[in-house]
């Protein structure tokens, strides 16, 4: 069991997620874009989904969402669920192509991050918070999506390393003899 844990992707995912969360907390709380805090962790989860598919995206979303809730002091699960959904949505890229172009990855990272950000007030609503919608939900979702897409060229390779995946390599078919 221990060997399985050490060999799993979690062993890389959690420390990298902690560093990304620390960067988000250090830099992007004060430096906002149109009063919107950029969501690095959410973008990274979406990148994991794009790289590894829905299943791994869900695992990344669950792990990093729980970490986010534990550190931020928000109810555990209130960020986990949106991040999990973000990973699953971004992972649906695998339905289209096995080896996506960078811009296609960016689009799906944006799509996953936008879904996750839009889900956050919905989950808060379900746990009994009164009108949890931010000032301008559409702007918040749009900026988070665009920033996530911009970060995808950086996050996709990191996610690939964390999930221990290699880029698909096309090999020429072996020549048939005779």
């Amino acid at each position, binding site marked *: 069991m221990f060997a399985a844990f050490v060999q799993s992707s979690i062993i890389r995912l959690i420390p990298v997620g*902690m*560093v990304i*969360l*620390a*960067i*988000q*907390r*250090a*830099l*992007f*709380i*004060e*430096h906002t874009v149109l*009063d*919107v*805090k950029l*969501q690095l962790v959410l973008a990274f989860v979406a990148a994991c989904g794009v790289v590894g*598919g*829905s*299943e791994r995206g*869900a*695992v990344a*979303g*669950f792990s990093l*969402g*729980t*970490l*986010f809730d*534990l*550190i*931020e*002091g*928000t*109810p*555990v*699960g*209130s*960020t*986990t*669920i949106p991040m*999990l959904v973000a990973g*699953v949505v971004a992972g649906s890229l*695998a*339905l289209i192509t096995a080896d996506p172009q960078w811009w296609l990855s960016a689009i799906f990272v944006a799509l996953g991050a936008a879904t996750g*950000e839009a889900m*956050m*007030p919905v*989950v*808060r609503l379900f*746990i009994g*918070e*009164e*009108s*949890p*919608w*931010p*000032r301008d939900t559409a702007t*918040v979702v749009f900026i*988070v999506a665009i920033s996530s897409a911009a970060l995808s060229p950086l996050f996709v390779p990191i996610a690939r390393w964390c999930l221990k995946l290699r880029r698909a390599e096309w090999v020429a078919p072996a020549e048939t003899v005779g």
Partner: protein
Amino acid sequence: MAIYSVGRRRIVIVLLLTSVLLLTLDLRGSAVLDRVRDVAAVSMTPVETAVDVVTSPVERAWESYTNYDELERENEALRERLARIEGSQAAAEAAIIDAQRIRELNELPSLAGIPTAVAEVVGASANNLDQIVEINKGSLAGVRVGQPVVNQAGLVGRVTQVFPTSAQVMLVIDRRFTIAVEILGGTGAAADPFAPVDTTLSGLTPDELNDAVNPTAAEPGPVITNPLDVLGGNDLPQSPLSPAVTTTTPSGEPVETAPPTTVPRPEDLPPAIPANGAPVQSRTGDATTTTSIPFEISSIEKEFGALKGDGQGKLPKVSLLQDNPSLSILQEGDLVATAGGSGSLAPPDIPVGRVVNRIDRPGVGGPVLEVELFADLEQLGFLRVVLFQPAEEAG
């Protein structure tokens, strides 16, 4: 290969259900999750410290590049404002002391008797929903859940979560924040402080600028005596401008004076502001300062309501009001302070803000007042936690 096989879908569903389970457990209060949260916070500390070491120089370089001009302008404006405030400070302190004595004579609760803990803001919520900041004082410093948090300007928020060496403070603008307040009806009647005026670069009117440069020519202006000045003394870190203040004498010579560090003795102070609001003249050295309050104190009527945050970028609102025209009509400019009460988590008379908009509603609901806070929540550095214990708990 089936991309969406049953096995894969099952994993997603199991994780989703686990999240819901965790959410339910945490909302019901789980000691295990609290312990895990503490461990996570401790594990995160070295990572955050390391990231801070790396990002701080970059951040400072960027800020010094982008904000230099703005800081210059702000510094100039603050110097002008400081010089102007110096003139009315003595009268304000006298008024505070008088109010204290009257309260003591009548055995009324006073802010001065409540201890405070000074704390520094060390973080803020990283999501776009919560309006929460983290401070570096916790249960070891006597901080408890529910205690009000203030800065020099007024109410900032309330403690919502406490750890041994840190605590989370929900800001007044958070949608979940509610507190009982009193509106001093009639305080906004005399002057409209929000009427459009010609201002200079510093944000001051030409007259105010003139007053700042030449205190002897000061026109009568409103004095806001801040009860927070006596709350815990002058224990907040002082501005770098504080060590020495340069004022100008009537002859035009600059004079450098040390700022007052303690509240002066009553006999050294000018007479307090009379109840009828008549102007008071006070002399500080060669400079004469005339101060007055812009309303009749006898005409002030208190009205009580509930202040509720409305999210980032929106003004908090006071509702549950019963507007009674026979007493006083609530209007723009009225002052808002905490109401206190036996069950309240905050003591009375902490300044909150000023009414900037009145929204009348049909029916018996009463008006809703939008309040502009005295505290600038965008610029929070050092805060004070009022270590207040409600009367009900104190017994």
